[in-house]
């Protein structure tokens, strides 16, 4: 067997070119084949990268679809600021579905632990139906969690936003099948094949601006469930939980009640990449309390329509 030697002249990041081209292809497919796509935008890094790809895919023309944010009411202010700045800068249309509205009128009930991530499903599905969105871009990556390893790039959802692993269509070559019946929609994941490291390398390469809480900063935090949580109206700290000042950063930016900070002195993107490369804990394991509930937690939530 002949083994060729490694090509030292190859560009350092050509895997990013491949992943970028694939994501752009997927985004353009959706714009061409669907009537009313929308991009789920939380102000988190994956949705920011997804939007960056969409801007590139249609340049110099504007992005031909809007953004949808499911606001848990417990967002980090820095993240909302990034969201609003981004929308204004690119002249985008933003739809917001508020979990708080549902709690206020009784359609949803606050959980005893104050965690609102599981409550996002109903407002999301309602927003998709009321705006008649037929394709919903999500920033989900297959490397995030075991149950996502088999998620399709085009993931068919029924009228209730539910995912049925047995009804998912095989995806071959570069041929994505987005056909759906009235009332159904398709969740589309252009970053399916990206890893956390790819996302960060791309952010570094493209000099993409993120909410500052992704980088190390001093913050008052308290410990709960093995994570550092930020105090806030959502219900922390409780009695017996003491605040302390630490140098931390966030690896994901979800609902404040269940998104933990990690001890870190990675103050810029290069330092973050070094940290992730050496990290021993997955992104979700480090910072999402709601995924720790059970091994099958994600599979259950996906069936319910979670993104």
């Amino acid at each position: 067997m002949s083994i060729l030697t490694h090509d030292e002249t190859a560009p350092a990041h050509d895997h990013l070119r491949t992943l970028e081209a694939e994501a752009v292809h997927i985004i353009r497919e959706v714009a061409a084949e669907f009537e009313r796509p929308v991009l789920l935008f939380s102000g988190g890094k994956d949705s920011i990268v997804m939007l960056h790809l969409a801007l590139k895919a249609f340049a110099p023309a504007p992005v031909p679809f809007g953004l949808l944010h499911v606001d848990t009411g417990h967002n980090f202010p820095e993240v909302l600021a990034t969201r609003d700045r981004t929308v204004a800068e690119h002249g985008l249309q933003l739809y917001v579905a508020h979990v708080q509205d549902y709690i206020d009128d009784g359609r949803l009930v606050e959980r005893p632990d104050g965690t609102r991530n599981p409550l996002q499903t109903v407002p999301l599905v309602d927003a998709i139906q009321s705006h008649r969105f037929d394709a919903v871009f999500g920033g989900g990556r297959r490397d995030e969690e075991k149950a996502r390893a088999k998620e399709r790039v085009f993931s068919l959802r029924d009228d209730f936003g539910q995912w049925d692993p047995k009804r998912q269509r095989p995806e071959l070559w570069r041929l994505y099948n987005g056909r759906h019946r009235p009332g159904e929609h398709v969740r589309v994941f252009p970053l399916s094949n990206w890893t956390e490291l790819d996302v960060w390398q791309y952010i570094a390469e493209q000099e993409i601006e993120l909410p500052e809480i992704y980088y190390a900063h001093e913050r008052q935090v308290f410990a709960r469930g093995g994570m550092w949580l930020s105090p806030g109206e959502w219900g922390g700290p409780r009695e017996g939980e003491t605040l302390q000042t630490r140098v931390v950063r966030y690896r994901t930016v979800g609902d404040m009640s269940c998104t933990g900070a990690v001890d870190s002195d990675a103050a810029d993107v290069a330092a973050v990449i070094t940290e992730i490369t050496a990290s021993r804990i997955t992104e979700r394991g480090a910072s999402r309390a709601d995924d720790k509930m059970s091994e099958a937690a994600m599979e259950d939530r996906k069936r319910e329509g979670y993104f």
Partner: protein
Amino acid sequence: MTVLLDAPTAKDTHVAGLLRLATAGSVDDGKSTLVGRLLYDTKSVLADQYEAVERTSRNRGLEQADLALLTDGLRSEREQGITIDVAYRYFATPHRRFILADTPGHVQYTRNMVTGASTAELAVILVDARKGLAEQTRRHTAVSALLRVPRVLLAVNKMDLVDFDKDRFGEIEADFAAYATALGVEHHAALPVSALRGDNVVEPSADLAWFEGPTLLEYLENVPVETERRPAGRFPVQYVIRHQAADYRGYAGTIASGHLEVGDPIVVLPSGQRSTIAAIDLLGRPAERATAGQAATLLLADELDVSRGDLIAPADSAPTAVQDVVATVCHLSEKPLNVGDRVLLKHTTRTVKAIVKEISAKLDISDPLAAAGSVKDTEADEFAWDDDAPAGHSLNANDIGRVVLRTASPILLEPYAADRETGSFLLIDPASGDTLTAGMSGDPLGVFS
């Protein structure tokens, strides 16, 4: 337990290239263990994931962590104890990024391997050293050949159970080489490993000192990836970008194969309009040339009427539009495909109506060459050569067969053997929208004629 060696710096993580590979193997060949081993030994498994596996292993009374659990995904398959769908895994070394399509080996899941192989640049097929080339191995090799996966690697596993016997490996290697060659696999190779013990997966093994080739990971890191398999550029128009303020009209899409350059005389098909490429934009970067796999926007010198589904190709080597399609297909859906069915055919960025005119043969994918031989022997009933599955008028899930289709409008379909991108298509159920069938134009295995 997950001990990192020297923590790599950001610079070391720069990787040259990305390899898409598909793995296949029977339930007992140790494929999940091998994939788990690759993930674990390349430090792609992190502390919390590994701890979950250790915990589960302990609960099941195992002494060692069962690495197979790392790749064990959905609850329904945990209950059945088998993998039932294609799962994608990601790992990286300082040299390369890998996307691994982990496809199940169970006999009824040919369609999953077809799915995984469709995008693979390399297929890794697992075989038990004690058993040698089993029927499933032959099927997996044939599927790889049918899908024109450029390279096929046989990982001869469980070498520890045959005392690392060099002759046993040599025997299997020779059998495989003969079979792969007969199927027209362009590049093939074999490696001895023990996934359970980790021999020759990431680290070389003293017990396999007689083996002069690389470890599995060395092979994966260094195997060449051919991005451009033929020169003739093919650009299916995906989306027309118009921007009035800038008086801009660009044709966006992904180069399906070959390359296109600024100044190239081109033809737009099926209309036949001609122009030249005035400019190429690669996602904000002007370029002289765009090659296969790149997302590009082409600007033409003339104002033409071009829309999604058209194909831009060099004027001197353009494909011919067809409406009569002869193809080898793998049926994917539980709903059978019947002669007379009206379907949608999705080819590159164009979807057209089509009717199934003939289903002329079925192929026994575990022994396609023997079947092909019998075609020539029975001239009277040319296609009814598979005794178990006579050429009827329908294809069921996992069947591979030869079909004739007529499309309502022309498509720019080329032989799959020459081009995986412009030679492939899907058949879609117009009512449910489900994907029914994966099609490969012509006769990629060369067994039907």
